[in-house]
């Protein structure tokens, strides 16, 4: 009886072996990178210059910590012609005007789509648009009934990038300059002399959501990043050094605001290969 069972198992193994081998082959062959995503996280020191005439007619100057996180990838379609970027920035800072202390918490998220123009092997220019969402608060505890100014804004922005590859010691260093200019959107702004008690305590919300355009919110931001491969060339470790400048300004409901944020940051870049079964499609780096 044992002999019969052993022979049956052996026979089954011989019968299914080719299929098993084939299946293994197919799986191996179809596990290919379907998408390459370049992720970066940087930490930096920001120089702040905040003006909000709802709180004070004078600028508060200080410093803060800035966190940036970016996903940058090639689109699946169009073979390197389209690229997407999501970008998150958050700044926590403290600023002074003489003896007065102001705290700032500001964050923004943007999603951008770009068309790429390859000028040559080294230079690539990208033009596109961004959807931006930003929020935050400037907090001046010394003010009694107007201790804070909320910053909430959604906008569509024009965005452009220039990517330049610099080979140093046989390794690819990437320099990138990005410029974003909000063109139209909506923003929150209290009326000239309105207290937040009227808005949130009594529900007087007339005229606090305003259309924004470069005429009343002449703002822009730019970022210069330099990606440096470090360590073994087989390890794919990349260091990012960056300078970013965010210049938000508004002149709405008689209230003048500027929030200038210049930051120097350092962080790491990780290139992730998203793997999925399917037809072989070659994935490209967004760079």
């Amino acid at each position: 009886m044992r002999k019969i069972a052993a022979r049956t198992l052996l026979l089954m193994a011989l019968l299914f072996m080719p299929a098993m081998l084939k299946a293994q082959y197919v799986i191996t062959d179809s596990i290919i990178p379907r998408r390459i995503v370049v992720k970066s996280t940087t930490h930096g020191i920001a120089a702040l210059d905040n003006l909000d005439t709802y709180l004070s007619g004078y600028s508060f100057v200080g410093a803060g910590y800035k966190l940036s996180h970016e996903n940058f990838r090639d689109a699946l379609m169009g073979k390197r012609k389209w690229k997407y970027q999501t970008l998150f920035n958050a700044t926590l800072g403290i600023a002074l005007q003489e003896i007065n202390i102001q705290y700032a918490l500001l964050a923004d998220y943007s999603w951008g789509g770009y068309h790429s123009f390859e000028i040559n092997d080294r230079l690539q220019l990208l033009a596109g648009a961004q959807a931006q969402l930003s929020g935050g608060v400037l907090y001046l505890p010394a003010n009694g009934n107007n201790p804070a100014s909320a910053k909430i804004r959604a906008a569509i922005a024009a965005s452009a990038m220039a990517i330049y590859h610099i080979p140093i010691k046989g390794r690819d260093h990437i320099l990138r300059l990005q410029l974003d200019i909000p063109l139209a959107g909506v923003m929150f702004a209290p009326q000239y002399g309105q207290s937040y008690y009227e808005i949130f305590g009594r529900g007087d919300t007339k005229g606090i959501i305003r259309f924004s355009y470069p005429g009343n919110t002449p703002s822009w931001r730019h970022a210069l990043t330099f990606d440096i491969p470090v360590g073994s060339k087989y390890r794919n470790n990349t260091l990012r050094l960056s300078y970013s400048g965010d210049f938000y300004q508004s002149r709405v409901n008689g209230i003048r605001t500027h929030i200038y944020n210049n930051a120097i940051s350092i962080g790491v870049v990780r290139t992730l290969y998203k793997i999925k079964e399917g037809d072989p499609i070659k994935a490209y780096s967004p760079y």
Partner: protein
Amino acid sequence: MKKILTYTLLLLTLTGCIKEDSFDNDPIGNFDALWSIIDQHYCFFDYAEKEYGLDWDAAYDNYRPMVSEETTNEELFDILGNLLAELRDGHVNLSSAYGTTYYWDWSITRPINFSDSIQRNYLGTDFRYNNGIKFQTLLPDSIGYMYVSSFSNSLGSGNISHILAKMGRCPGLIIDIRGNGGGMITSAETLASHFTDREASVGYMLHKTGIGHNDFSQPEEMKLKPAKGAIWLRPTVVLTNGGVYSAANNFVMMMQALPNPYIAILGDKTGGGSGMPLNSTLPNGWRLRYSACPMLDVNGNHTEFGIEPDIRVDLTSEDWDKGRDTMIEAARQYIKFIYQNLENSEKEEGETIKF
């Protein structure tokens, strides 16, 4: 690409940078900055001009020559304090290392009409205390008495409901806010909301919409919803004096507007202070507070310079000597008077307390 860059630069040039106020950080610059902030943000120019002939431009002409580059900070602080006193507004203050300027006339030129020593004769030693409010049942007529010295504490409906529940057997209530200089308007609202069983219009609020002295929004109706908790509809007397200011003044304004017919304001005219103050800073960092958002009573009238009581009573010197509070006694008489009238007309309103 060149075009994009050209248009971008053109756009940035056209829109330009948004800059801070252009006053220098020197005595003259700080004087001009303060005068300008008040000129562009203060909310009672028109009303003060009608009441006592305030002329802010003339004030500049009078005080500006007192300031020169040689003026010391302490001298400047005093000059600016005197300039601000022209507004006769207790909500206008300048704060620095030299102190805080105050305009006190709304309070100290008026009869004090209150004595905490006399009050002890009523509170005794066994009074209760809840979130800043002292309360007691006055014998022999079992009138409830609560002393709200400030609205600086954040009052909740739970606090007020607890106090009112403890006074569930009292036929009437005295709310003593004499000397209450204000605090949080939300606390004043919370307390007032326990004295109406329906949503009521209690006044109007508006704000500046531009730098002109008369650039104001349309008055927005202030509605008060009944509290979620104990509602007191029995006879209620609010005791006031010249020290009742700001949020306490607004409390009186709201209580006067409630549809409960058994609420009376008794005592002296309040100190006023109906403008919600906002703050700003001078180039040298000194902090300036000013009235920014006026509140009007339910008839659309300013209450900046005080609210007249329904029943005018002063604390007499005879009673003072006897340790007797004329106002509390008058309030007790008023509550008795209400009940006598109710009995006469066989009405039963005001005899329920809801939980």
